[in-house]
């Protein structure tokens, strides 16, 4: 048992030292992101922009910090939209969360109902020393009021639009010209064009006519094109399981299973979107629908001339908007919220929104930008950047239900592809989702 006592002491000292280290690490300087040394307010901004968008975001943050000596915005990339959203929700319970973040439209109702985000009406009017903003200059369809059907509720301003988008059609001009096909205006034309454009060799499909992730956003477009709606006017009943919803999903099932003219890219969420983009770029598909947000990326990487067009219509033309809004988190100290407001206000100013739009493909959110001489000249040369804006005439809104995100993410998204990849029928899949949604809404 008795080893060298020298070593024994060494071990003892080491253990004491180790213990001290453990204890002292708990009493390190606390950094809750709100250090106000030298009168500089630090604002933590969590974002979910990857790739090019991330670079542009960081550039914008740097130029904001350079022009605002009293505020220092610190941007942190937090993964994709939904990963970031989970982190924001968790962090809102701690003292270390962000003061500013941006979230997709569908998650706004729950964030508002849960009381996590700051009402912005007062700031926008310039109360308490905040810089006022001309709300009328925001493009109506892209503003909070234009994005949501409030279902009869009173909801104040709490979100400013920034990177807003719609899905648009991207097509390979050469393939369409060679086949003598023009961009489809209706579902019928879409099916016919896809048939003409699909190239088969034996049992291999060399080129697909059409490719689309079986995804909530696109189905939501189709649902409204078939003149349907997600929820009743009071928001208490789900209405997507019948005629219109079935026609919407039925179109995709028909094109994948019967016509075999549409590829359903594997993977969930944005993984499938990436596959569709890659297939389009490498000439394996003639037409895809995806967000206008990929316009710069696709244009830069395509080795062919690409065209863009409105989504086709069925009973009517319809397109949902997408992308995100800025929100200021309610739980942060006043100074940070004011600085946070200053940041989101600045980001949505004409100058910044113009730069953001040109560098990414998202829409500029201000009327004054779209109507400016400079942008008009830009659109003459880059007509593809204009498609999404003109398409806003057909924009449809989301119901402002706190259950919207759960209906989308849990009840619909994982099940929409079921009739496409299994033997389940459109009726049974949507019927079940609708019943589940009604149970959820009734709770």
């Amino acid at each position, binding site marked *: 048992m008795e080893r060298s006592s020298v070593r024994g002491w060494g071990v003892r000292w080491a253990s004491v030292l180790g213990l001290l280290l453990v204890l002292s690490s708990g009493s390190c300087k606390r950094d809750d992101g709100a250090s106000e040394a030298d009168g500089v307010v630090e604002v933590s901004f969590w974002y979910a922009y990857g790739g090019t968008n991330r670079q542009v975001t960081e550039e914008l943050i740097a130029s904001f910090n350079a022009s605002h000596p009293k505020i220092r915005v610190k941007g942190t990339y937090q993964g994709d939209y939904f990963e970031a959203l989970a982190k924001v929700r968790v962090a809102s319970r701690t003292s270390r969360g962000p003061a500013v973040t941006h979230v997709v439209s569908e998650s706004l109702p729950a964030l508002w109902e849960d009381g996590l985000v700051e009402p912005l009406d007062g700031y926008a009017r310039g109360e308490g020393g905040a810089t006022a903003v001309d709300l009328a200059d925001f493009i109506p369809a892209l503003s909070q009021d234009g994005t949501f059907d409030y279902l009869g509720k009173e909801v104040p301003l709490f979100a400013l639009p920034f990177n807003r988008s719609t899905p648009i059609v991207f097509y390979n001009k050469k393939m369409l010209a060679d086949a003598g096909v023009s961009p489809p205006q209706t579902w019928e034309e879409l099916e016919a064009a896809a048939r003409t454009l699909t190239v088969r060799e034996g049992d291999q499909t060399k080129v697909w006519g059409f490719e689309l992730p079986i995804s909530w956003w696109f189905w939501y477009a189709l649902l409204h094109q078939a003149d349907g709606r997600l929820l009743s006017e009071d928001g208490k009943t789900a209405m997507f399981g019948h005629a219109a919803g079935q026609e919407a999903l039925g179109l995709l099932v028909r094109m994948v299973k019967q016509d075999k003219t549409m590829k359903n890219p594997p993977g969930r969420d944005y993984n499938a979107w990436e596959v569709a983009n890659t297939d389009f770029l490498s000439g394996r598909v003639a037409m895809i629908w995806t967000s206008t947000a990929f316009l710069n990326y696709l244009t830069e990487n395509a080795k062919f001339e690409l065209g863009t067009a409105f989504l086709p219509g069925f009973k009517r033309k319809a397109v949902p908007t997408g992308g995100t809004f800025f929100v200021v988190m309610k739980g942060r100290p006043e100074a940070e919220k004011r600085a946070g407001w200053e940041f989101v206000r600045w980001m949505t100013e004409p100058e910044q929104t113009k730069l953001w739009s040109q560098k990414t493909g998202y829409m500029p959110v201000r009327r004054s930008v779209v109507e400016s001489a400079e942008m008009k000249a830009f659109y003459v040369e880059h007509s593809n950047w204009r498609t999404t804006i003109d398409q806003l005439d057909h924009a449809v809104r989301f119901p402002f239900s706190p259950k919207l995100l759960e209906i989308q993410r849990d009840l619909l998204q*994982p099940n929409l592809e079921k009739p496409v990849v299994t033997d389940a029928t459109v009726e049974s899949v949507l019927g079940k989702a609708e019943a589940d949604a009604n149970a959820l809404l009734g709770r």
Partner: protein
Amino acid sequence: MGTQRRGGGARWREALTGYGLVLPSMAVFAVFYLYPVAHTLYLSFFNWNLTGDPKPVGLGNYEALLSDEVFGEVLVNTLTYSLATVAVTMVGGLGLALLLNRPGRVYGVLQACIFTSYIVSWVGVSLLWIWMLDAQFGPVNGVLSAFGVSPVDWLGDPDLALWSLVGVTSWKTVGYDMVLFLAGLQSIPVDTLEAAEMDGASRWQRFWSITFPQLMPTTLFVLITSVIMTFQGFDVVRVMTQGGPVRATTIYVYFIYEQAFGYFKVGYAAAAVVLFFVVLLGVTLVQFRLFDRQRREEAP
């Protein structure tokens, strides 16, 4: 040495040293392990969406789980994935070990090659196989088409996707089982085998009567670690299929992740964690029993 009686002071000092030594790691263990486990159990009795205050629901989450159709699918998926992978890697690992348990540099290099896939990160392996298994342009279908097989949608077909993941997982981990079996094989005394050979025992007889029984402790160890490893499968699903198509590859841990961080149903996810814990505890106890019996049988 060492039997000498010492004063109370020395003994106390020794005890203090002992506690001092384990305290830091115990503190870390308590904060990062015990507390989350206890808190998970607590949360499983509440509805909580990551914000606001949890609402107590008693056993509601457990009842909802057990009547959830998706949860049933997930259980079947998890068992299929786990058992199939364990079977393939154990048989494959043992086979490779028997084949490559020879002296010489060539065999050493071969062993190393097979083991390397185990060292590569799951994300790397998953990305590699997304490309390998691409329905239209992947090398796997490329090779198959040379034999006239029409393209297979490995990850997009709900009847196949889970089996593709079994294949990828087995490819990655079979080297680990092989190394363990090699170590086991090399600890079997050569004289026993030689004696049996002299007595005219065939290869087959030597394997079943000597090698296999002597490998039993290794086999049990591999079985336990493989079952636990596959039950905890996550990365490969997260990167390759995100649980789809539909829910064909949603296995247990991915299901928990999706419920908690995709749909913010934290209490529901916590209840699933607790059930999972109970099941794994049961599996481990059974396996310990087997170990125990094995040890007693081995005792002279």
